[in-house]
């Protein structure tokens, strides 16, 4: 009895082969190939004394605790059981050969020199993933999801959302840090629409660029374990935006669409140790975050090209009606633009418009001015008239005359749009009390 060293191939010879084998011989061989392989044996040459049921001389082959046959005889003999070109394949990585010869090999007094056998064996890769190849029931690969064979071995893998455990065979749902960064997409509970596993602590995070608002739409079916009296005591689907919970759901009625107004949303799915609900599926989309519709603060403010909706990065320009000026607090603005920010607010608050004030009109040397309409009114469209201290001075105006109006630009202008005020020039040769001769 000799163990055959673990090799990928080899040959087994009957004792003394190719010389006739001795009588009264029992020889055994334990063929072993490396794990991950099976033994394939074929007889290159087989010449044993034939007998009924191979009673006298035989080769017995055994593998996987099963007999693979008992063989004797010669090629073409009517008695015996010649193996021919048969391939003997084990299920495991071992095969046992036993050779037995009785006390003689004569036939009607003639000694026939039976030569014995020459067998070749080789190691053949075992496809561990094929369940039919398992030597025993408990030796079948235990890959929970996927089995991948390779020469000399195999490995397991898991479905999407599952993680191979340390035993390299079992798969567990991995949903604790799922990240979504596309503008839209779908997410669902594990195995959806099949019932979700127990003991889940799933966290789905949607992270989009600033300025986008995530909208969640629930698809059918929607099924999460619930309770009649107590709200979501078993399993919960929580929606969080910017760390703040905006919804917690369970039951069979799918929630309405949720506009989160946030570019960051976390969906937590917690399940207990039991349940048979089909779970949920969410279609998320994104849209630019919206800003409040700009509303003028007074009747003099104009918003140019008012849009029905303002979104992130949109802007509006505000101006005033003629004769009014833009103000922010006490400060005059030359122009105003507000941009819709990523957080849905305007980067500047709406200004207001105040009527233009030209200030006090310039004093006229040796003259004065008077208000045509309302006294001391220096606002837009107010009118003043300059005059000189007559009869000592006379007024000299530009082509625009002596009436000045408070213009939209905040300056007093004459009829021709000129700002230069008139001048009072001396009147010569007109004494108030000229010399008069009475007596002639």
């Amino acid at each position, binding site marked *: 009895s000799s163990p055959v060293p673990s090799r990928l191939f080899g040959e087994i010879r009957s004792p003394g082969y190719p010389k006739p084998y001795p009588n009264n011989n029992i020889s055994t061989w334990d063929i072993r190939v490396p794990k991950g392989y099976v033994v394939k044996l074929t007889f290159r040459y087989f010449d044993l004394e034939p007998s009924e049921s191979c009673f006298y001389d035989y080769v017995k082959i055994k593998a996987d605790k099963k007999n693979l046959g008992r063989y004797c005889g010669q090629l073409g003999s009517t008695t015996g059981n010649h193996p021919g070109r048969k391939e003997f394949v084990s299920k495991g990585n071992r095969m046992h050969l036993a050779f037995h010869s009785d006390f003689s090999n004569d036939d009607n007094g003639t000694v026939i020199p039976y030569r014995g056998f020459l067998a070749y064996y080789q190691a053949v890769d075992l496809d561990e993933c094929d369940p039919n190849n398992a030597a025993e029931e408990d030796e079948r690969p235990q890959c929970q999801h996927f089995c991948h064979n390779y020469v000399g071995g195999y490995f397991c893998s898991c479905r999407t959302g599952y993680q191979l455990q340390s035993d390299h065979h079992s798969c567990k749902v991995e949903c604790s840090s799922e990240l979504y960064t596309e503008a839209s997409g779908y997410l669902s509970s594990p195995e959806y629409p099949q019932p979700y596993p127990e003991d889940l602590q799933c966290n789905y995070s949607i992270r989009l660029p600033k300025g986008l608002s995530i909208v969640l739409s629930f698809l059918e079916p929607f099924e999460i374990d619930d309770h009649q009296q107590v709200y979501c005591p078993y399993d919960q689907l929580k929606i969080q935006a910017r760390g703040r919970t905006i919804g917690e759901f369970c039951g069979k009625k799918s929630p309405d669409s949720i506009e989160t107004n946030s570019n960051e949303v976390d969906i937590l799915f917690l399940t207990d140790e039991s349940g048979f609900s089909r779970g949920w599926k969410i279609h998320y989309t994104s849209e630019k975050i919206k800003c409040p519709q700009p509303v003028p603060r007074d009747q003099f403010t104009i918003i140019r090209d008012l849009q029905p909706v303002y979104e992130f990065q949109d802007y509006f320009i505000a101006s005033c009606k003629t004769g009014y000026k833009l103000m922010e607090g006490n400060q005059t603005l030359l122009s105003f633009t507000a941009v819709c920010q990523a957080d849905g607010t305007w980067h500047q608050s709406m200004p207001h418009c105040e009527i233009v004030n030209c200030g006090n009109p310039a004093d006229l040397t*040796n003259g004065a001015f008077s208000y045509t309409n309302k006294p001391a009114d220096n606002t837009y469209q107010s009118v003043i008239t300059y005059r000189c*201290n007559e009869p000592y001075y006379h007024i000299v105006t530009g082509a625009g005359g002596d009436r000045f109006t408070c213009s939209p630009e905040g300056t007093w202008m004459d009829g021709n749009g000129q700002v230069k005020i008139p001048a009072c*020039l*001396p009147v*010569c*040769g007109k004494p108030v009390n*000229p*010399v008069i001769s009475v007596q002639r």
Partner: protein
Amino acid sequence: ILGGKSAGRGNFPWQALTTIHGRGGGALLGDRWILTAAHIIIPKGQGENEVGLDQLAEDANVFLGHTSVEELHKMGNHPVRRIFIHPDYNPEDEYNFNGDIALLELKYPVTLGPTVLPICLPDTSNTTFYEDGHIGYVSGFGVEKNFLSNDLKYVSLPAVAREKCQSWLDSKRGDIPIVFSENMFCAGFLTVKQDTCQGDSGSVFTVLDTQSGRWVATGIVSWGIGCAEGYGFYTKVLNYLDWIKGIVRED
């Protein structure tokens, strides 16, 4: 002013009283110019080099706005910024008053009113003011009855034809090489004791332009032989309009 009358307030609102080298007169032009005679600023026989015009401007006193010398002084003087003497005036030529015209620029414009008003300048096309017999009025603070007057006086005098002026002058000058140029005219009477005199120099001879209704300065009291002994001689303003306007407008 000899043989004249006291002026009422506002009769001659352009009348200025000057004190530069003694008493003189002047007339307000616009609201910041005084028309006067050059010789009251640089008297004959006193060259410009002795005292500069800047210093003269500093020292000059000009009064406006009243008929009383005392009241004028109380009202305060009007400082002079600059003095402009006509280039034809030659202080060395004792008997030649050609170019006897000057302008004083006041530092600050005056505020016009019933007692302070400017005189007008004549229209270049109008020479009738100088025709023989055309009446004008002269006012001044000059000598009256041997004393400087404390109040403004005025007298009405006719302009005289050039020939008469020349003829009279020739009869009076003797050896004195006194000049009667075309830039002068004479006015007054040969026998009536009405004339201008010392202290009136620089005051203006004015006529009423009936067309415009304005009083116009046609002459500046310049020189004479004695006072009220014949005609008085005046700088002919009409001939100096370009010079006046050139200075006044440029400023």
